[in-house]
């Protein structure tokens, strides 16, 4: 018993210094198969402290990398500083997050500790400033703490600092809105009093581009992601729609009908040169880039019914990827290995994923009509619109269809598009 304890102590002494470095990262590269138990301690004090604890718990759970332990164990709060590691350990807690949140007069300061419970020590202590509640950056600042914790413990980028842009339909018009990925802080991006739809984020998250009828004929415009004046991007005769910005941010795949029917083109955003990729009588639309920028997946009804195809970014080597029912709106996963799209299954639209090189699909949804899949930047989640609750609302789910969460309420919401990471 004593010997074992000594060994453990020795181990702790040698391993602990390395805790914050490469070796102890949880090493989640692809999809998540093992979660680590983490607890967020109560953060006593102001309502802001409580919000911090709640947001951290939500974000860490959402990340799919942690089991966030619910409830407070019988933790002994002694006068001595530092957490009661033994009590936390009883519940299998691997990591513990503690924090103190105090007003600075101009906002708040959160001092956040990450503890390794078995080793009974703090492995990280950082201070973060949080703007006052009600100011625009308040929740985003807390989400950035979550991301720092995720990075510290996994070496991976979290997605807590992301938003979802979407179109909101009211009285026949549509405006572009954005909302935090957790359903808080919805705000209006466009105020054009016309139909504006199918938003896409620029790769730096600074702008949102969309199709709009503002000049009568549908054109592509972009607006600052925080809202503001819209500027034209592509204004050909006929439809200019379905913008998809390449991973390097330099090219824009889009659908134009200026040469007859809907065809896919790539616009070199810097040089303004336009290259046509598809040539046939079917509707070719909804392009989405592979993460390395070398391929484009799209939908086409060239075979009679809309189906999913892929091609090189130059338009060559076109091949059909899925052979199911009517299929739309493909989205290439940021991890590159899967493509999500919409397929008519038994008369309703469902979200399906297939391996990027083709193969049999997995149906992820089953209730209502489900459309417009959009991947989170870490490729572990999918935003989509669904009529499962009556009207069309925005939801998110895990990559395998689990953990469906409602993001908007009230109906009239379509075309969700997940932002890149927006934090520092």
């Amino acid at each position: 018993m004593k010997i074992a304890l000594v060994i453990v102590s020795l181990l702790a002494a040698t391993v602990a210094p390395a805790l914050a470095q490469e070796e102890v990262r949880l090493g989640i590269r692809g999809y998540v198969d093992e979660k680590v138990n983490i607890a967020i301690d109560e953060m006593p004090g102001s309502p802001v402290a409580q919000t911090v604890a709640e947001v951290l718990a939500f974000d860490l759970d959402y990340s799919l990398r942690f089991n966030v332990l619910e409830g407070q164990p019988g933790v002994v709060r002694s006068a001595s500083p530092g957490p009661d590691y033994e009590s936390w350990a009883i519940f299998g807690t691997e990591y513990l997050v503690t924090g103190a949140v105090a007003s600075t007069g101009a906002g708040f300061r959160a001092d956040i500790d990450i503890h390794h419970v078995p080793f009974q020590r703090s492995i990280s202590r950082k201070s973060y400033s949080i703007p006052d509640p009600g100011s625009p950056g308040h929740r985003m600042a807390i989400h950035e703490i979550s991301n720092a914790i995720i990075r510290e413990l996994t070496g991976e980028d979290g997605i807590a600092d992301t938003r979802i842009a979407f179109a909101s339909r009211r009285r026949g018009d549509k405006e572009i809105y954005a909302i935090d990925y957790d359903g808080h802080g919805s705000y209006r991006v466009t105020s054009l009093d016309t139909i504006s739809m199918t938003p896409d984020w620029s790769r730096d998250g600074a702008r949102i581009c969309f199709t709009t009828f503002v000049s009568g004929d549908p054109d592509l415009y972009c607006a600052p992601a925080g809202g503001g004046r819209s500027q034209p991007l592509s204004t050909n005769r006929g439809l200019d729609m379905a913008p998809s910005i390449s991973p390097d941010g330099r090219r824009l795949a889009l659908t134009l009908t200026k040469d007859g029917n809907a065809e896919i083109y790539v616009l070199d955003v810097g040089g303004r040169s336009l290259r046509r990729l598809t040539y046939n009588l079917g509707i070719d639309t909804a392009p989405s880039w592979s993460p390395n920028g070398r391929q484009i997946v799209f939908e086409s009804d060239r075979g009679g019914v809309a189906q999913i195809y892929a091609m090189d970014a130059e338009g060559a080597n076109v091949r059909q990827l899925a052979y199911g029912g009517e299929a739309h709106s493909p989205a290439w996963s940021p991890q590159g290995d899967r493509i999500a799209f919409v397929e008519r299954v038994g008369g309703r639209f469902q979200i399906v994923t297939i391996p990027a090189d083709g193969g049999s699909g997995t149906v992820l949804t089953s209730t209502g009509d489900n459309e417009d899949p959009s991947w989170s930047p870490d490729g572990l989640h999918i935003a989509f619109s669904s009529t499962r609750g009556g009207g069309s609302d925005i939801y998110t789910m895990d990559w395998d269809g689990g953990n469906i969460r409602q993001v908007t309420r009230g109906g009239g919401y379509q075309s969700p598009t997940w932002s890149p990471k927006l934090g520092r």
Partner: protein
Amino acid sequence: MLGRRLTLLMVTALALGVAAGCSRKQPPATDDRGRVEPPPVTDTADADADAEARRRAEEEARLARERAYGSIQDMIYFDFDRSDLSEEARQTLQMKAEALRQFPDIRIRIEGHADERGTVEYNLALGERRADAARAYLVDLGIDPDRMTTISYGEERPAVEGQNEAAWSQNRRDEFVILGG
């Protein structure tokens, strides 16, 4: 004097243009071509008869124009996910062609629509295809393509709200908006 008449004509033409531009379902109840009726010159029975005949002719012209507006504004409908013209749609378009031939000053905008099923982008492309199909057929029937513009609203402007075939079948349509004439 000339200046005033011109102004009057322009105002009338403008009013006509606005009425035509705004009207979708209802033909404007304006008189033919915006001509201002001259006051009767004499008081004789002959002149009365002339005026009466002229009024009747103008009334008939107005009715003819109203009928033409009506048949031009008739919608055509499509099957699910299709943009080919049914026999019924062709007949409706033949009536439009006749009206358009009769009133060569009329220009139209063809608006393609889709039902809510399917994605926003696909439906926008489908709506455009439906508008193009009507336009191509009217061109085949001899109508000058320059008199027609097309636009697609996809699923964005349903004629009927509802999530059933009764609503959807009303929404898969082309609308025809009179722009001028």
